């Protein structure tokens, strides 16, 4: 889609590649390649349950990544999503376990808290004109501290699947006569489809892309830039709230106050692998989903082939370098054309 240069090779000139976008095809091939490599190398990876775990870890990174894609496309970033997710999950857990509220209310609290912080981020960036990196770095610290204060420093677990309150866990995986169905994928794909349409087919979406490519030109043409830039952060906050529910839903562990820093980089990394430009102006939600799958594949696959934790980090880093190089390379090519 972005490759409009007249020259090009057989691959980029292929009509299907043109329609879908070269980057997405490359990432999709990488997903398949990684899957096959792990499949061949590790017998434990071949088990069905590993696929379920793979999707488990995709849900919360996926929701965060969908949201942050919008911020990245405006040329900004949202660093508060990792600690924010933990903070909202703690708030929800506190209300359910300590205040005895129904789980549904706890989930709603996660989403509302996410939207409120999204609003706050948007206010800092769009109205006060703070650099997004700094503004969201501050909210990252705030959410980290707030989560601890909310529970009085205690770590709290969401209701377990064996209790009646644990029904919310079946949103992501349901056990039907011994077979686990990872139905969370339905919601993730649904979110991707909806947000793809929003980004590409609606006015707010097109404005968000335009902010990233040339904010000044858009402002001069009479568009309320502040509003649409603000919206990008609210979207990010909303999806972080959903991520908090997914995090609580797939992990039985108690949510630990003070944790979550670093998780945002998994989501941002996924969006960038998926072809979203760090400079803004381009990116797709489908690409982000593919990026999320790559991150999850690395997270799940590398331990399965027996690599120690530190090697996993190195390999993940190398894959990110490769993805960003592709992005830089593509931009250079575009500039030359």
């Amino acid at each position, binding site marked *: 889609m972005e490759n409009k240069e007249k020259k090009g090779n057989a691959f980029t000139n292929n009509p299907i590649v043109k329609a879908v976008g070269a980057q997405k095809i490359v990432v999709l091939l990488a997903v398949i390649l990684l899957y096959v490599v792990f499949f061949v190398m590790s017998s434990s990876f071949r088990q069905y349950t590993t696929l379920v*775990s793979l999707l488990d870890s995709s849900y919360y990174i996926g929701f965060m990544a969908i949201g942050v894609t919008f911020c990245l496309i405006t040329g900004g970033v949202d660093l508060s999503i990792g600690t924010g997710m933990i903070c909202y999950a703690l708030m929800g857990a506190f209300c359910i376990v300590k205040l005895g509220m129904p789980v549904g209310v706890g989930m709603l609290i996660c989403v509302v808290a996410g939207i409120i912080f999204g609003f706050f981020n948007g206010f800092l960036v769009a109205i006060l004109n703070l650099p997004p990196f700094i503004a969201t770095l501050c909210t990252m610290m705030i959410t980290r501290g707030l989560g601890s204060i*909310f529970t009085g420093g205690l770590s709290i677990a969401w209701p377990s699947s064996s209790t009646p309150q644990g029904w919310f866990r079946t949103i992501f995986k349901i056990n039907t006569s011994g077979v686990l169905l990872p139905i969370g994928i339905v919601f993730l794909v649904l979110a991707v489809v909806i947000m793809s349409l929003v980004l590409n087919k609606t006015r707010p979406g097109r404005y968000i892309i335009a902010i990233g490519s040339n904010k000044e030109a858009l402002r001069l043409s009479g568009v309320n830039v502040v509003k649409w830039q603000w919206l990008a952060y609210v979207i990010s906050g909303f999806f972080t709230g959903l991520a908090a529910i997914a995090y609580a839903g797939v*992990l039985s*562990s108690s949510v630990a106050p003070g944790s979550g820093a670093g998780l945002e980089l998994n989501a941002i990394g996924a969006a960038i692998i998926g072809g979203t430009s760090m400079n803004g102006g381009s990116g797709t939600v489908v690409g982000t989903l593919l990026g999320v799958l790559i991150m999850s594949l690395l*997270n799940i696959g590398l331990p399965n082939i027996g690599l120690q934790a530190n090697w996993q980090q190195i390999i993940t880093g190398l894959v990110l370098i490769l993805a960003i190089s592709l992005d830089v390379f593509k931009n250079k090519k575009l500039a030359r054309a």
Partner: protein
Amino acid sequence: MKKKVLSVLLSVTMVAAMVIGCGNTATETKTDDAATTEEKTEAPAEEKTEDTEKTDAAATGDMSFEIVSKGFQHQYWQAVLKGAENKAKELGVKINFVGPNTESDIADQVQMLNSAINNSPAGIGLAALDTEACMDGITAAQSAGIPIVGFDSGVPGAPDGAIVATVATDNYAAGELAAENLYPAIKDIIASATAPVRVGVLSQDATSESVGNRGLGFIDKLASLVVADGKTATVEGNDKFVTDSKCEKTDGANVVIEVAVPAQVDASLSKTDCETLLNKADTIAIYGSNQHSGEAMVSANETLQKFGSGEGKVIGVAFDSGEVIKSAVANGTFLGAITQAPVAMGEALIQTLADAAAGKTVSDQDTGCQWYTAENMESEEIAQNLYD
């Protein structure tokens, strides 16, 4: 029109945020207030009794002690307090047990230590949040001739002679206890196995002393039990554990102890580590050396359903308590878990303080730990040490 709708929406959200925010602060302050009033009501009473105590002390030899803990955030500390109170009643001594609001309030704890010294007690119990910050207080206590007994994590790095003794859990021994209790359950499988079998160890990190020792104690003990029965064992996985363990590296050993440590403390990474271990066909048991790892085992089991007892099941052993691990032990998912003994720690602390104040020689003490299973976790002796 659109603008109006947006601004109305904005205002509503902001007001909502304010209401929610204010609501929290209100309750927060209230509880804080309640806590302070409680403290206040307690404090004068304490002081009074101390005053009378001082006159009594001369006559009957009674003593008073100041205990400066790390706070009451965790149920664990409530249990330490209970043990200390029990022992104080038994010995007929007075104690004043204090602690900061959170384990980050170092300055508050220093303040508490200073006022503890000003009360000139017969001894001070201290679980320092930051040894360096407490140094002035420790020196002041030393020159005033007040003995300090460290407890829980103690006062690491304190100068020689400043702390007369430390009462704490011996984490290495706690790890050994886990291995001793796991071994009978896997002994027959190892004996009858035709191929090597695997025992997984999940450790939250490789740097913390307590978690590290819990892992090493388990590995060393399990390896020695295996070797004592005429089989061989080896350690694989995380380099630090492989190097630090006493177990010799053996090729083709009958029992492979594999240690998994995530790159960072993250529930999802530890869950993956556990799933990877569970997915290996030769894994017969997994040990999680703290609450984080134990809970990751529960998360992994949600998908794999492999923990339990019987044919084809993997035996799970965890550490610490908390709602998640307690229910996994209660419903038979885990064979059992180790809990520290905070009540015994509280008791030992007061006993050591009393001995030190009486001029007896005191030494470091392991306050022990307990193995709990679905059968014994309801008993009073165990239940008092389990917390949510």
